[in-house]
């Protein structure tokens, strides 16, 4: 090795170390954000009490109940769903070679919303429970969730099928996704037209994604699937870098481009479908987070993917905490906040330009 190459190597090592530090910092920021999320709320619990609860030390019974039964599942759901949506977005943007790649672009969110509306209207899960109809409008959440999940997967399957028939070119997938999104939106509108007030409320309620809905067992399923998908995407980072260099170049480097596209799409859809099924639709996280991260850390998927996982979790956790506090004692569903936040952030990113 000559001096010149040693010099280049040293410079590069310093550069990658810097990137790893940024990824680690985003990850570490989750800890204070989580403590804050658990301590803030209508009943304030001091941070040290939160910490003592988490590691199992003696605290007032009331604090323990609030942390373990109410705030912790919600906060963890926000982290896991945020991480999943963000990594799905990062992967889709590379797979589709399109900065607008996200669950929305592929019509998966719209399909899930239609699935929920379908359950409420046709499978009759939206009838009120006793006199208390206004509080929770969905009588049978399991069927509604399953139906949303099934339709999200159906959308993914159709896109995959079209991709297999016509080749996995990004344009084919994006166009199919847009068409599916329009179709399912139309379907939802059609069902809403015939809905009575209560059914309509149920459909709308479900469309607003909210992290407060999950219980521990649902959180377990969500976490397991998200974990598997994240691991998969992490191992594919070189492949996504290669695809970014162009399909032909990637093929020349031994990447099975078509298989990678289709499988990545299925994984991302699955991730989106499960999060939508349990929490409802949470927009813009999948679209905005990878763009924010790309600005800080560049487009190298070896860093972009882990940073998106942490960054998505962090963003949704912060948004969720804010949504609980902003109109306190009223609690906003986090999706309302991300929608308000996402659009201006995205326009800002566009105006700042790519460089």
């Amino acid at each position, binding site marked *: *090795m000559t001096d010149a190459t040693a010099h280049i190597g040293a*410079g590069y090592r310093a550069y990658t170390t810097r990137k790893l530090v940024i990824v680690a910092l985003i990850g570490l920021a989750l800890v204070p954000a989580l403590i804050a999320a658990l301590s803030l709320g209508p009943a304030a619990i001091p941070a040290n009490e939160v910490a003592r609860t988490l590691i199992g030390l003696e605290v007032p019974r009331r604090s323990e109940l609030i942390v373990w039964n109410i705030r912790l599942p919600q906060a963890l759901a926000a982290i896991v769903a945020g991480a999943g949506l963000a990594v799905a977005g990062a992967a889709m943007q590379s797979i589709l070679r399109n900065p607008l790649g996200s669950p929305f672009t592929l019509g998966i969110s719209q399909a899930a919303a239609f699935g929920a509306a379908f359950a409420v209207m046709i499978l009759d899960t939206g009838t009120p429970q006793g006199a208390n109809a206004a509080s929770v409008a969905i009588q049978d959440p399991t069927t509604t969730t399953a139906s949303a999940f099934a339709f999200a997967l159906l959308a993914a399957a159709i896109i995959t099928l079209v991709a297999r028939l016509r080749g996995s070119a990004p344009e084919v997938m994006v166009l199919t996704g847009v068409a599916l999104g329009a179709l399912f939106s139309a379907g939802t509108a059609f069902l809403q037209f015939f809905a009575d007030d209560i059914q309509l409320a149920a459909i709308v309620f479900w469309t607003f994604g909210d992290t407060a809905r999950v219980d521990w067992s649902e959180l377990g399923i969500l976490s397991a699937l998200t974990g598997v998908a994240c691991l998969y995407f992490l191992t594919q980072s070189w492949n996504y870098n290669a695809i970014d*260099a162009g399909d032909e*170049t990637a093929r*020349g*480097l031994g990447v099975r481009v078509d298989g990678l596209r289709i499988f990545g799409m299925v994984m991302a859809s699955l991730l989106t479908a499960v999060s939508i099924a349990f929490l409802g639709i949470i927009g813009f996280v999948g679209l905005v987070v990878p763009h924010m991260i790309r600005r800080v850390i560049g*487009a*190298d998927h070896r860093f972009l993917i882990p940073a998106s996982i942490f960054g998505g979790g962090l963003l949704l956790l912060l948004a969720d905490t804010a949504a609980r506090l902003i109109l306190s004692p009223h609690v906003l569903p986090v999706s309302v906040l991300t929608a308000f936040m996402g659009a201006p952030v995205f326009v800002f990113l566009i105006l700042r330009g790519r460089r």
Partner: protein
Amino acid sequence: MLHVSEIGFVYRNRTVLERIGFELRPGRILVILGPNGVGKTTLIRCLNAIHKPSAGAVLLEGEDLLRLSPPRMAKRVGYVAQRTETARLTVYDAVLMGRKPHMGLRVAQADCDKTGAAIAQLGLEPLALRHIDELSGGELQKVAIARALVQEPRLLLLDEPTSALDLRNQFEILTLLRDAVRERGMATVMTMHDLNTALRFADEVLLIKGGNILAHVPADGITPDLIEATYGLPVAIHHLDGVPVVVPQFRKDASHAAE
């Protein structure tokens, strides 16, 4: 030794390549010439199975390339595509990517050494940590070539490596490329449309027309007749300081220019 035999390729019932066969020794550069749309790029891509040939075989040092899995193929054959996309990736990472077929998730010291050496060989040291979306066309092409070199291929394929470059960059890059080919002893096949550049840097020339080989000659064995038969245009070949220069003879003044 590269041994290509009887390659055929059919696209949507149209025969693009009928029967193409040639041999090429290591460390030699073969340039494929022919009119637009004759299948030059297709032929290159048939050699590393990006396109599946409908017939024929490609033997590299006795091994049948067309039977290899994509990752194994990538260890033996490097490919520089006509177009590369850019992303916010450093030059170093873009070159290191060429080690992908050889490495797992972990980047070993040997991978970094080879990357550093290829970057140095193409004179990219000052740009090593720059992002490739900030580079000029010539610099980007050097990155693509460096990436193919760190693959350590025994066969190097390049599709129009200099078509979008200015004069100085064309010569600089082809000179660097020729040195690398000689040093590493790779059999090298590339397509080109500029005859003069091709004749200057090729060891051998393959002229194709109508899906078949019209001629396979050493670069200095090319004649005006062969070029006219390939492109349908009369030319004269002059030698300036030992360098062949192809000059098209336009129909208008063909009567006196041809004599």
